[in-house]
């Protein structure tokens, strides 16, 4: 067993094949961790496809496989809730990306009076999460200032409050700062206008950062619970995640149907995570460690 090999990790896990005791222990512990952290999610999968009405019969493999749960869940408007969720996620994410890219362009590529105040303002919003302002926010959404329009029960009522997010603005700003100024100046010499520089020079170079803020934004939007709950004027306005609670409180509905709904709410986040995993992990580590 070489010294170098054992210094690979903090615990000094052996990497050579002869150290079968150490390897065995590690494999067992990994299996335990896998079971603990993915087991409950596997139960969602198996429960959703299991035609069983008894909450004591949950397992990792379906006992009697069937699609019946989705049929019954469909009768309980599950597809309608999924549609609500997807419209809100799509709309809010698109708006969030646009707003962030716009704001970041000003903050990263321009020097202007009041820049410090602009940054401080955005920073302050990050200390005002939905939970803290939920009660007055529900009143504001019911009667928008100046225009006096009510967004209660509309998609916009959920989309607009999520449209600007300090975190994505800052991530985007940091990234845009790295783009060399010469590129922009060259384009301006060639007579390109402000919007053209923005759209044709800066934006295409930001693709990696767009991936990061898209995956974080999607997660943040899909995670929303309190906001869709207070915006809804009627249970039919609920997003899928909020509707799970209504579904559960119905006595006629068994665990399998709730799990079918839970599965539909789980799959989009899994797909986004698995397809943009690198962006996601990079965002976490740079976002938090830098501070």
């Amino acid at each position, binding site marked *: 067993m070489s010294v170098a090999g054992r210094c690979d*990790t903090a615990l000094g896990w052996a990497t050579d094949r002869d150290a079968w005791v150490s390897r065995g222990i590690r494999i067992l512990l990994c299996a335990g961790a896998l079971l603990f952290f993915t087991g*409950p999610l596997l139960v969602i999968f198996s429960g959703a496809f299991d035609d069983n009405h008894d909450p004591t019969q949950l397992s990792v493999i379906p006992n009697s496989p069937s699609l019946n749960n989705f049929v019954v869940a469909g009768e309980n408007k599950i597809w309608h809730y999924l549609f609500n969720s997807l419209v809100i996620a799509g709309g809010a994410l698109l708006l969030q990306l646009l707003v962030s890219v716009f704001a970041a362009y000003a903050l990263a590529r321009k020097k202007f009076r009041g820049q*410090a105040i602009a940054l401080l303002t955005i920073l302050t919003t990050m200390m005002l999460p939905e939970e803290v302002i939920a009660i*007055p926010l529900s009143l*504001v959404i019911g009667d928008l200032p100046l225009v006096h329009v009510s967004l209660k029960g509309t998609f916009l009522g959920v989309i*607009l409050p999520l449209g600007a997010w300090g975190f994505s603005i800052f991530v985007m700003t940091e990234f845009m700062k790295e783009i060399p100024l010469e590129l922009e100046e060259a384009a301006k010499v060639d007579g390109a206008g402000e919007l053209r520089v923005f759209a044709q020079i800066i934006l295409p170079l930001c693709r990696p950062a767009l991936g990061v803020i898209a995956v974080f934004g999607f*997660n943040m939007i899909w995670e929303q*619970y*309190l906001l869709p709950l207070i915006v809804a004027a009627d249970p039919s306005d609920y997003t899928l995640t909020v509707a799970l609670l209504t579904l559960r409180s119905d006595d006629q509905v068994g665990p399998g149907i709730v799990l079918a709904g839970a599965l539909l709410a789980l799959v989009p986040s899994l797909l986004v995570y698995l397809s943009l995993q690198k962006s996601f992990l990079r965002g976490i580590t740079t976002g938090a460690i830098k501070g």
Partner: protein
Amino acid sequence: MTAVHPLSDTQDVGSTASGGGAVETHPVRRRRRRRLTGATLVPWFFLLPAFLLFLTFKFIPMAEGIRLSLFEVRPFLGDIFVGFANYARILGDERFRDAIWHTLVLAAGQTFGAMLIGFFLALLLEGHARSLWFVRSAVFLPVVAATAVIGEIWRLLYYPAPEGFVNTALSHIGLGPLEFIGSPDQALVSVMVVGIWKHAPYDMVLIIAGLVSIDRTQYEAAAIDGATTWQRIRHVTLPALRPVITILLTLAAIRGLRVFTEVYVLTGGGPAGSTDVWMTRVFTTAFEQSEIGIASAGSVMLFLITFLMTLVVQLYRRAREAR
């Protein structure tokens, strides 16, 4: 996980803010700048969408919340100014005081629990092997699943009969059966376990990033000195991880104070109010008892506490970095 970022970004802003604040000091040039030419308006044009949304959905609600917290809100009848009476009502309300206690216990338990498990996971899963990468990705899944989904599945897993899923698992190691969220004595801990389960893999990712950045020669030096694994962890690894751990602990603690969804979905604050936290209490006060004034006062108090905590942590970190 969204909550992780406010603090981290503070730092970036601090550096840019000082850079942005140092605009031209020459009086003549400054006067010329003040004229609203097209060029000076361009940045504000790009910032307009963000600021319009922030104003409408963050700052106006915040101001409105502070205003309402000083009133007895009576829809259609007109509000009555009551000064700080709403705050006094909250501080005198036993359910709110219980909620403070539950919130603190839950926040502390989840924060330290997730950190501890995340640390062990990181030690276990550090390494370059493809199989380890696979295990890490799989273990991370609870972080991306929506809290509402997690709440629904754990409610079913926690089924209180001896045949329930978790009880069956516990019986294999000679424990249980437990009632979990059905019993006032076990509900808070049960909610805490779900929170740890969801947040530990997040901590793991950051701790692994910290572990990877530790200089390997330090381990080699420790090995040559004949240090045991425990001594190596204690004297090399942990000191190197201190900055990461500090950030994670403070962010998680601040996030923990505004916990809502986990509790609302799992127990709704019950049974018998045993898991009622600050935000579920505020929510009930506002939307079930229609006491908007009192609920607003509760929100303002939560904001002040998280704001102060953020500020203290920031100042402390600045001071330490300056040293």
